[in-house]
């Protein structure tokens, strides 16, 4: 049996941790003081890109490498000075198209340099920006573009052809599609209806005056999923940079000489907050790898790029565990000093595996799309409790509550309830797009209610218990059952559909679908594969079900709601609980 605590302290680190005295730092910290460490935009206000890029480019950090973009065997470095010039070019491209402050720019691409230019250049231009996960299928892309009234889409020629061309006429707000030609053999590198971004950038000036955005101007749109309805577009403002800055210091312990690798894709909030913004605010060098996960490649990158701080995810860690210790030991990592993980709770075995095989404990932390930045974390100077998300960072007040008829009631240590955060930190989301009611329902008085069930122990560490809703968490990404069910229902043979998260040792949960069929349709293997194929074409591999089962009918409550929880209990062989509200009574 492993001990329940891994002891750590502020002493004995090669690089002294930024966050060394828990109580004193939390007592001393104010968001106003953190804000004062960032620069005003010339002309006033606060702009993420000015602080992330221009501030360094105009100072001693000008020649420091901002990004090392790895693709296959190639590596391309970009200094802060070059990044400033290139993002100015992108901002000028937007301005030249008449795209201005408040016009939303979407990016659909793998981790190519243009994605990073587009995000930062849009912010300079005062245009809110939303990176979409390139593994989304046409349906999630169309839904999100419409929710966010996307005016510009930056993508690659191949993604445009396979995913966007067929849904483009369904997105009336979309005026400009800027493509990066990505296949040298492509006879038509710029498909009809698109413009070659590379040519536009080459022709644009590298001089641009960053728009003096206000701290509460919309900057980033990140989509997340609820149990019901369409995805929710969480709105984040330029002031969020204050949280990215502070958490980069406390949770990721960034120091000026660090080489940082955040493995998350910018299509998810981690890949933007910590794959783009936080490391740039700190002026460190970030590694970006365009390739898909590959255990050997990852170990090689950690070693050859001399990564010092590595921020990754439980699914990746479990895949590395599966690849075995020999591969891990084949690549010495003398430079690596901190490993952090986010996305879903990291099981204690994985925390210990890090210590045993990688030689470093893995620091789990917790946050979500709505919080915009890390809120609760295990950090290098303090004890780790494997399996726990850690303790609230400076500036963050957390508690466990129970919802009551007239608000919330705080609960004591060791009692399971909903994790709540005192509203008002800078990266808190400021709304869900077009859905003020849904936003309002997330708050009770001063508290933001996270929808995550958790417990706090007597030492102030928080422990994740589960979700309060039916949202599925797969490989760290939230998938809304409704979005999947809607697409399944489009299949001509399907009468009803329900989707659950089925526990999976590698990715946490996989999407499992249950469907009942229309009259006279015969359930067989050919039909099962046909429905799965339909779902994968429309939703993309990241969202579509991995398994599909047929049922004669789906269990519903008397009010007609499909009981996903009952399906899940059956799938897991668990007691089915109280079925008294079920249609037809308990059976």
């Amino acid at each position, binding site marked *: 049996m492993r001990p329940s605590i891994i002891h750590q302290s502020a002493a004995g680190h090669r690089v002294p941790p930024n966050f060394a005295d828990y109580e004193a730092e939390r007592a001393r910290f104010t968001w106003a003081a953190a804000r004062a460490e960032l620069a005003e935009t010339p002309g006033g206000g606060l702009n993420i890109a000015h602080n992330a890029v221009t501030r360094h480019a105009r100072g001693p950090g000008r020649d420091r490498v901002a990004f090392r973009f790895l693709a296959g065997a190639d590596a391309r470095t970009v200094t802060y000075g070059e990044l400033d010039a290139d993002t100015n070019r992108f901002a000028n491209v937007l301005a030249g198209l008449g795209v201005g402050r408040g016009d939303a720019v979407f990016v659909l691409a793998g981790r190519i340099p243009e994605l990073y230019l587009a995000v930062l250049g849009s912010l300079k231009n005062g245009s809110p920006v939303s990176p979409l996960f390139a*593994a989304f*299928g046409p349906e999630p892309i169309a839904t999100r573009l419409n929710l966010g009234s996307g005016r510009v889409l930056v993508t690659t020629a191949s993604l445009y052809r396979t995913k966007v061309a067929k849904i483009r006429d369904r997105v009336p707000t979309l005026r400009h599609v800027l493509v990066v030609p990505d296949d040298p053999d492509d006879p038509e590198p710029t498909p009809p209806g698109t413009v070659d971004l590379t040519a536009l950038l080459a022709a644009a000036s590298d001089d641009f005056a960053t728009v003096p955005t206000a701290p509460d101007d919309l900057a980033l749109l990140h989509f997340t999923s609820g149990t019901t309805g369409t995805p929710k577009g969480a709105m984040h403002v330029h002031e969020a940079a204050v949280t990215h800055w502070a958490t980069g210091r406390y949770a990721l312990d960034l120091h000026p000489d660090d080489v940082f690798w955040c493995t998350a894709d910018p299509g998810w909030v981690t890949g933007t907050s910590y794959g783009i913004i936080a490391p740039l605010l700190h002026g460190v060098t970030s590694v970006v790898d365009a390739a*898909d*996960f*590959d*255990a*050997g*490649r990852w170990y090689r990158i950690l070693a050859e790029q001399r990564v010092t701080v590595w921020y990754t995810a439980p*699914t990746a860690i479990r*895949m590395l565990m*599966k*690849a*075995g210790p020999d*591969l891990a030991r084949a690549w010495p990592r003398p430079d690596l000093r901190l490993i952090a993980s986010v996305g879903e709770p990291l099981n204690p075995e994985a925390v210990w595996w890090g210590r045993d095989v990688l030689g470093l404990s893995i620091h789990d932390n917790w946050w979500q799309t709505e919080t915009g930045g890390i809120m609760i974390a295990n950090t290098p100077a303090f004890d780790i409790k494997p399996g726990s998300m850690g303790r609230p960072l400076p500036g963050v007040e957390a508690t466990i509550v129970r919802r009551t008829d007239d608000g919330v009631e705080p609960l004591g240590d060791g009692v399971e309830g909903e994790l709540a955060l005192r509203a008002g930190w800078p990266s808190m989301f400021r709304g869900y797009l077009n859905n003020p009611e849904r936003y309002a329902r997330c708050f009770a008085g001063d508290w933001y209610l996270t929808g995550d069930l958790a417990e706090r122990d007597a030492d102030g560490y928080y422990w994740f218990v589960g979700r309060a809703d039916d949202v599925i968490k797969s*490989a760290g990404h939230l998938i809304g059952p409704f979005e999947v069910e809607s697409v399944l229902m489009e299949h001509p043979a399907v009468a009803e559909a329900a989707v659950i998260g089925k526990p*999976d040792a*590698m*990715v946490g949960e*996989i999407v499992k679908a249950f469907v009942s069929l229309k009259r006279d349709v015969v359930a067989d293997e050919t039909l099962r*594969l*046909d429905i*799965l*194929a*339909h779902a*994968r*074409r429309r939703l*993309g*591999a*990241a969202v579509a079900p*991995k398994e599909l089962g047929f049922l004669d009918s789906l269990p519903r409550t008397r009010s007609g709601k499909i009981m996903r929880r009952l399906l899940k209990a059956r799938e897991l062989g668990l007691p089915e609980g109280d079925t008294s509200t079920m249609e037809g009574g308990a059976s």
Partner: protein
Amino acid sequence: MDDTELRDAVVAELRRIAPEVDADDLDDRRPLRRQVDLDSLDWLRFLLGLHDRLGVEIPEADYPQLSTLGEVVGYLRARL
């Protein structure tokens, strides 16, 4: 099993994971994951499925050699 039969077996396994794939559209020389929308879990399940179907051990360290359909068929051919 000749190469055509082996390729058919590999494609059949791929279609169990990604039934939207049309075998005729696959270019044997281009990376599979550039032609077929496969996430990390799909890819893992595909390789594990090949092991179950054909009884060939595919150690993790060899995964990087298995990018194109042609490479997968060649790899299996050498070990069958």
